[in-house]
């Protein structure tokens, strides 16, 4: 069915937004066929964002842990995470539709920074919604967004994290839909957002695959962290048709009890939130449950519908990494490779380190979705 991945997806949004998502769908279809627009985006990705990103063989870490670790270096992109792949694309779509204002939610602040950046570059008005808890724990990114000319609106409702920032952005969108594009930051939300974001992020997988094809081999496994799931879908799409293990790593938080984790795919069940039917953490009355992760970008009770489908079909394995294992990996990669990873990406690494026996002698590609400068406060506060 159109707009669904298997049984997941759809458009569960107020009726007022339906014409806007249909307009977006049309613009996206036109954009994909427009050679000139494609060329322009490619040029921005290259000369502005810094694509293609390299793949680094992590020699010392590999030696220390007994596997062959390859890192897809999205942390080297302008603004420091994969988020810019999507924001440049969607900011171009915004102009395509003749809209002048963009709004976005942000958790870790990386998507907010990448959106503010694209808005500055293309001359668009920009408002970013961020939960109060996240604004505090990712404070450097709040300053960056402001410097880039965005207005940052702090959200005090609910759990004051990513989920609530999305609620606030949806409410803004319903109100200002005529002039505004909602630049969603992950493969979540109503159709066509999951597909648009996946399309713009799949450059990660395309580049990675080409790299390995040139080398004459493929990795045995590809590992990525999953918040909403955009960096994971982005890299998985490059390998999904190959005999390569795909592993998505969710935030295990401090444990499996209520409110201690954000293991949507691992411990949730199908439900409806933020425009899509997908896996969700909710109670017997349908109320969304509190979640926890040390990483603001993974601290979310929902997940993109494509992941729900990939889970059910068994093509992707969804695992988890606890806070402490992610913090350990954060420090290990810094110490052994001179690369400070984002706490989000540290979950993919932490999973690998925790399960080193399973990957012994194997070639593993990890999507290093972002850099960790923004996280120094949290990590050093916890005692390095």
């Amino acid at each position: 069915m159109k707009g669904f991945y298997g049984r997941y997806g759809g458009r569960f949004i107020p009726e007022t937004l339906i014409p806007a998502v249909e307009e977006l769908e049309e613009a996206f279809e036109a954009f994909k066929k427009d050679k000139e627009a494609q060329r322009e985006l490619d040029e921005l990705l290259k000369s502005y964002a810094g694509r293609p990103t390299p793949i680094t063989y992590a020699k010392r870490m590999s030696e220390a842990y007994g596997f062959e670790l390859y890192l897809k270096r999205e942390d080297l992109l302008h603004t420091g995470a994969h988020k810019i792949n999507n924001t440049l694309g969607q900011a171009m779509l915004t102009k395509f539709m003749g809209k002048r204002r963009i709004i976005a939610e942000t958790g870790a602040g990386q998507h907010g920074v990448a959106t503010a950046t694209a808005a500055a570059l293309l001359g668009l008005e920009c408002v970013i919604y961020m939960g109060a808890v996240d604004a505090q724990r990712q404070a450097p990114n709040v300053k960056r967004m402001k410097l880039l000319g965005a207005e940052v609106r702090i959200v005090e409702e609910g759990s004051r994290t990513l989920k609530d920032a999305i609620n606030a952005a949806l409410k803004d969108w319903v109100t200002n839909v005529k002039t505004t594009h909602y630049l969603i930051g992950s493969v979540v939300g109503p159709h066509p957002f999951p597909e648009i974001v996946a399309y713009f992020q799949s450059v990660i997988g395309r580049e990675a695959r080409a790299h390995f094809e040139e080398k004459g081999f493929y990795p045995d496994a590809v590992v990525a962290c999953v918040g909403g799931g955009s960096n994971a879908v982005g890299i998985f799409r490059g390998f999904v048709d190959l005999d390569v293990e795909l592993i998505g790593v969710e935030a295990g938080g401090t444990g499996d009890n209520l409110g201690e984790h954000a293991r949507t795919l691992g411990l949730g069940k199908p439900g409806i939130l933020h425009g899509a039917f997908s896996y969700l953490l909710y109670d017997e009355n349908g109320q969304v449950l509190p979640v926890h992760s040390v990483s603001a970008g993974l601290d979310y009770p929902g997940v993109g519908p494509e992941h729900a489908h990939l889970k059910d079909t068994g093509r992707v394995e969804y695992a988890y990494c606890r806070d402490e294992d992610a913090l350990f990996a954060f420090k290990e990669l810094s110490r052994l490779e001179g690369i400070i990873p984002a706490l989000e990406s540290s979950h993919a690494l932490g999973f690998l380190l925790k399960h080193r026996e399973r990957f012994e002698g194997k070639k593993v590609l990890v999507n290093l979705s972002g850099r960790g400068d923004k996280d120094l406060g949290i990590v050093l506060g916890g005692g390095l």
Partner: protein
Amino acid sequence: MKGLYLIAGYPDFETFSRAVEIAEAAGFDFIEVGIPFSDPVADGPFLTKAAQEAIKKGVSFERALDWMRSYKGSLKLYVMTYANVLWAMGLEKASKELEKVGVEGVIVADLPNSEHGFFKSNGFSLPLISFATPESRRKDIKELEKVNEGFIYFVSVRGTTGGRFNPDEETKEKILHLKNHCKVPVVLGFGISTKEDAEEALKLAHGFVIGTEAVRRLSSGIKDFESWCFEIGKV
């Protein structure tokens, strides 16, 4: 068709029941029984907060159902909620239970007309109320003209609940067109709060429903609610 939206069990079940009795005495025709959801993206700050308080006090689908089962008055009952609240009950089961307690139809704030099929194919058989909005296009309006159950809920403002009722000319034309071409009544909602709004709404459509203002009055005391209710009920 004059209606009030009230959150089930808010501020408590006793006050809520009393409010429904007052609404009937004041001349209202129907109640939208709100079943609160944790993440109500169509609601403004006031109803969002009220919903969260209600959830904290234990209001749920089951509790709302219990209340409706025991309801002895003569107002028509509709349920207004969000998709996941019904999904969590099981759509087929939710639909059957609501039907048993006499619910006429269900308004799901995050279920646009184009996803009614998703609910229906999963066993939801009660009428799902269709929405019209200021953004409705010609093709949407053509579809709405075919609707033959419940009513058309015209969301009269772009935005969340609790905004101002001030439809522009184009929106007024859409409302009047639907009023003249639909098989079912057209009811205006969102932003209506005063007697003047209600009068204006009745000139444009067959009915109106008041949400935020009703809940606000109720939360500030049953006396205030009562006098306001009778004033609107006379319209």
